[in-house]
């Protein structure tokens, strides 16, 4: 009998949050973390990130001190992460917050009961960009540690060392669906009994100006019309949307066997009732109504629920002209007449598109909202593209939601959907 999987700890860092409590406050307030780093980013030689939702600068040791960890873990974290790239420090901080809040240090698991999955790939082109510049000038001075640090699996090495994890460990990639794919694989590991606990971390996408420019070249990135009002730029489901806004964010979830979590009286955020994925057999970035519908239906069937059982949908909705419309159509196919009774919001409007991490950051947002009985606003939704959806308005809504669906769709026809239950 496959074991049920619950979330016992969470950690989040993004443009509007340095931890779960501040994330909850920011969601409740509908705070927007999207800013601009200078003049119009349409200039061909513009070498910045433009309009995006940045993780504010921080001092690693100061953030560590705030987390109330044991001296032993703080020491290991400082040793392991002092000279690591920013993306690794961010991943580690979210893992430490989650580990701590789940009470894992006091739990009686043996090190090889606990696995780690790092969701995300091509994590830090920013590091490669600056290293390449150095290589062009002075190749003799390229650091030796870059040989370890350019690998995405470096996150696995650092986090497993600090937390003493000896179960299975690997990184996985599914483009913008990586976060949900991480939930799927962690759920699979635990329900099959391969691991008792999984530390699932979704890494921030630390892009260089090269990737940002390439995204601009595709026409998929927003921020042109609203270049002087960055907080207006990300408008999921709105008639005036023009493209996605890049966001920096990372999250960690501790997923555990429900039976074992209950036995140790662990904290309880909610259950991963289902996680489903499917492809479109398409190498391009265009989304598919059929593929998205198939993923959502698969998830509902796996969870053993009907469309009418869903209270809330955390949409993928990136503020993409095509993507948002396709998702509305797919929601229509999946839920039919039930759709108008289900609340919908789009978290990317508040903290941008966290790319690989978006699925996990938004699943965390969903569990927070379900626990605290509110739904965050759709702040820039002035002219909705659908009149048959029940969108949350400009203010937070008090609602009790027991079942939620969270979508994530990635380039290359990757569709995923997760069902969360409290």
């Amino acid at each position, binding site marked *: 009998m496959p074991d049920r999987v619950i979330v016992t700890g969470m950690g989040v860092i993004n443009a509007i949050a340095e931890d779960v409590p501040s994330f909850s406050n920011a969601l409740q307030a509908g705070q927007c973390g999207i800013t601009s780093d200078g003049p119009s980013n349409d200039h061909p030689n513009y070498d910045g990130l433009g309009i995006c939702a940045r993780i504010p600068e921080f001092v690693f040791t100061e953030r560590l001190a705030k987390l109330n960890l044991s001296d032993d873990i703080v020491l290991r974290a*400082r*040793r392991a992460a*002092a000279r690591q790239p920013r993306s690794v420090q961010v991943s580690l901080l979210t893992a430490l917050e989650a580990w701590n809040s789940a009470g894992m240090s006091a739990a009686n698991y043996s090190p090889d009961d606990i696995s780690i999955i790092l969701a995300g790939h091509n994590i830090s082109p920013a590091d490669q960009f600056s290293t390449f510049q150095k290589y062009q000038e002075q190749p*003799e001075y390229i*650091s*030796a540690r870059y040989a*370890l640090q350019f690998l995405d699996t470096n996150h696995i090495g650092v986090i497993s060392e600090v937390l003493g994890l000896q179960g299975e460990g690997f990184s996985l990639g599914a483009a913008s669906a990586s976060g949900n794919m991480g939930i799927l694989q962690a759920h699979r590991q635990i329900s099959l009994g391969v691991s008792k606990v999984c530390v699932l971390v979704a890494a921030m996408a630390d892009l260089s100006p090269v990737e940002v420019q390439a995204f601009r070249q595709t026409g998929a990135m927003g921020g042109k019309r609203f270049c002087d009002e960055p907080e207006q730029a990300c408008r999921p489901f709105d008639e005036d949307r023009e493209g996605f806004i890049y966001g920096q964010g990372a999250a960690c979830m501790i997923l555990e066997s429900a039976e074992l979590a209950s036995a140790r009286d662990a904290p309880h955020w909610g259950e991963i009732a289902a996680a489903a994925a499917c492809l479109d057999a398409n190498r391009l970035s265009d989304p598919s109504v059929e593929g998205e519908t198939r993923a959502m239906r698969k998830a509902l069937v796996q969870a053993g629920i009907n469309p009418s059982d869903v209270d809330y949908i955390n949409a993928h909705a990136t503020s993409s002209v095509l993507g948002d419309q396709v998702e509305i159509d797919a929601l229509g196919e999946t839920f039919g007449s039930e759709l108008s009774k289900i609340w919908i919001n789009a978290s990317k409007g508040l903290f941008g598109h966290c790319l690989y991490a978006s699925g996990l950051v938004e699943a965390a947002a969903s569990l927070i909202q379900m626990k605290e009985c509110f739904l965050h606003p759709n702040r820039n939704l002035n002219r909705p593209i659908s009149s048959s959806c029940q969108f949350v308005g400009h203010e937070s809504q008090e609602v009790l939601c027991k079942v939620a669906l969270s979508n994530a769709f990635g380039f290359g026809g990757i569709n995923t959907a997760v069902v969360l239950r409290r």
Partner: protein
Amino acid sequence: MSSKAEIFEIIKTNLLELLPDLDPTKVVPEESMKNLGANSIDRADVIIQTMETLSLKFPLHELGKLTNIQGLVDDFHARCMSK
């Protein structure tokens, strides 16, 4: 032109940067970086960073067997002299 004392300070600074928990009073010329807790990657990076500070360029394998920091200081100093 860097003296041996100056070179030692550069190495010490680089080592402490890579090992933030190291007690600075323990970093003395008679000690080896390995004994102080520097792994092979840390040791390579201390050497590379020191090379860069001193504007020296040479293949790492030329350093051969060094038993302690004093050996490293002596080697760097000789290279500075012959630049």
